[in-house]
């Protein structure tokens, strides 16, 4: 699903967010990216989501080279990804239902189809009764679950989450993580950036640890023979 070959990202001004990062996340796998803030977690996700481009090295998503994707193709590649943000990024001018339905509207589904799948996604995160509510009236945990429903409503192959439990208490955080695990169990590839080490410990999933832009721990590396070649 995701392949990084010696990816380096240097921002304008010289700050190097990622240095020679190589990793491979297979279809249907789930992993956590950990590390201090500023270690490069977000940058790594941004490269996958086509928000940033690698300065050096090669990043692949489903064998598509992310280094040089034509502008017009970006939306269509993004439709395979569900992105969950720490600050939810909900649109506050419309009700929960419309927020969750947005990816389906963008992809041009029929109305009955949109209603059916939107309700299914809301049901999955336990918010079916809130479909008419405005996001501002919801609690932080509920808003985050709306964000998750929106990220999965179009059945993406890959879920990316950037600090999805950042502002939530431990009980809610565990609930949110469980939702991700459930999606992973039905075959969705999941990559979550988080510094909630205690919670990650409990979940027993592979970890990728970044420190100042370098990958210092890679639980996925064991089954990656290609990396030895790459490191010559």
């Amino acid at each position, binding site marked *: 699903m995701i392949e990084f070959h010696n990816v380096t990202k240097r921002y304008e001004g010289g700050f190097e967010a990622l240095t020679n990062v190589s990793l491979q996340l297979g279809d249907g796998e789930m992993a956590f990216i950990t590390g201090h803030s500023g270690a490069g977690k977000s940058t790594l996700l941004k490269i996958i*989501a086509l*928000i*940033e481009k690698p300065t050096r090295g090669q990043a692949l998503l489903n064998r598509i080279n992310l280094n040089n994707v034509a502008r*017009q193709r970006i*939306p*269509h*590649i*993004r*439709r395979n*990804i569900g*992105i969950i943000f720490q600050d939810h*990024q909900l*649109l506050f*001018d419309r009700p929960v239902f419309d927020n969750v339905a*947005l*990816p389906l*509207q*963008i*992809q*041009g*589904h*029929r*109305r009955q189809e949109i209603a059916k799948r939107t309700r299914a996604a809301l049901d999955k995160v336990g918010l079916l009764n809130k479909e008419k509510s405005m996001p501002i009236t919801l609690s932080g945990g509920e808003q985050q679950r709306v964000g998750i429903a*929106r990220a999965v409503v179009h059945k993406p192959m890959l879920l990316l989450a950037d600090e999805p439990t950042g502002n939530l208490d431990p009980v809610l955080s565990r609930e949110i993580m469980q939702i991700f695990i459930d999606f992973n169990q039905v075959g969705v590839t999941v990559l979550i950036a988080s510094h909630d080490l205690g919670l990650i410990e409990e979940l027993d999933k592979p970890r990728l640890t970044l420190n100042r832009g370098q990958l210092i721990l890679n639980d996925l590396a064991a089954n990656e023979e290609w990396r030895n070649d790459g490191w010559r």
Partner: protein
Amino acid sequence: MATNTRRHKPAVTNAISAYFLHHLQSLVFSLGKIYQAPATTIMTVAVIGITLSLPGGFYLFLKNIDAMAGDLRSSSQISLYLDLDLDEKRARAVAKDIRSMRQVETTRFISRDHSLEEFRQNSGFGKSIDTLSSNPLPHTIVVEPGAADTFEIRNLVKKLQSIPQVAIAKLDTEWLERLYTIIEIAKRSVIIITILFASAVLLIIGNTIRLDIQNRYQEIIVTKLIGATDAFIRRPFLYGGLWYGLLGGLLSWLIVEIGYLAISGPLARLNLLYQSELTLITFSLHDFIILITSSTLLGLTGSWIAVARHLNQIEPS
């Protein structure tokens, strides 16, 4: 139900119907946005309406002047002053000949005695005229041409001038020619004004949409991250501009109509005083459609320019 029989619609048909559905949704959604922000909308629409009412009103004013001038032209007359030594009987015979000419609608004969009498009564020089030994005024024939065309009238004047008994043939329409020239100048001015004000509307709408884009920065970023194409993001803004143009056009029409209603009172009195039959021309259906269509197109174009300039610069980071 009909939907049951068509459950297995081909995907392409679905995609197309969804495409039009989204267009419709954007149209309604952008109208909803306008409704949600009434203050901004009212201001923008008012500015557009007032701006467009100027060329609109000017155009209508000109249309009225043009119609009046047309009336005057069709009533243009040619005065023929006959030779002084012609007696009345022969003069009347000349008038009769002229009346039978093809290009002549009718003629009116004014005898020299009648003219003198009129002059004596109206001019206030009665006493001094009495001192004259003979009547200095000629017989006069007033000719109403059948045609309204300038060229034909001028030909007729030449023809009448060539009649031996006619001393002077005078077409008293030079002032009308001047009026027409002035109207022509005014027409071009209206075109210039229209271009200038249309550009102003373009800028107003462009700026409003630019602010709208800035206000919805976050929404644009989120939809881009979800995989929205540029066309999808562009659509509600374009329809927003369309609504501004349409509503502004309607308002300008209303302003001009009210303005003309305000003028119609004094004009009716003027009609009474001059015993004329000036009727005020207002926008025809044709004018109305042109006004609304062009203001809507201006709205769409203005927002298109704003969208093209600003939307591509917004990228998630």
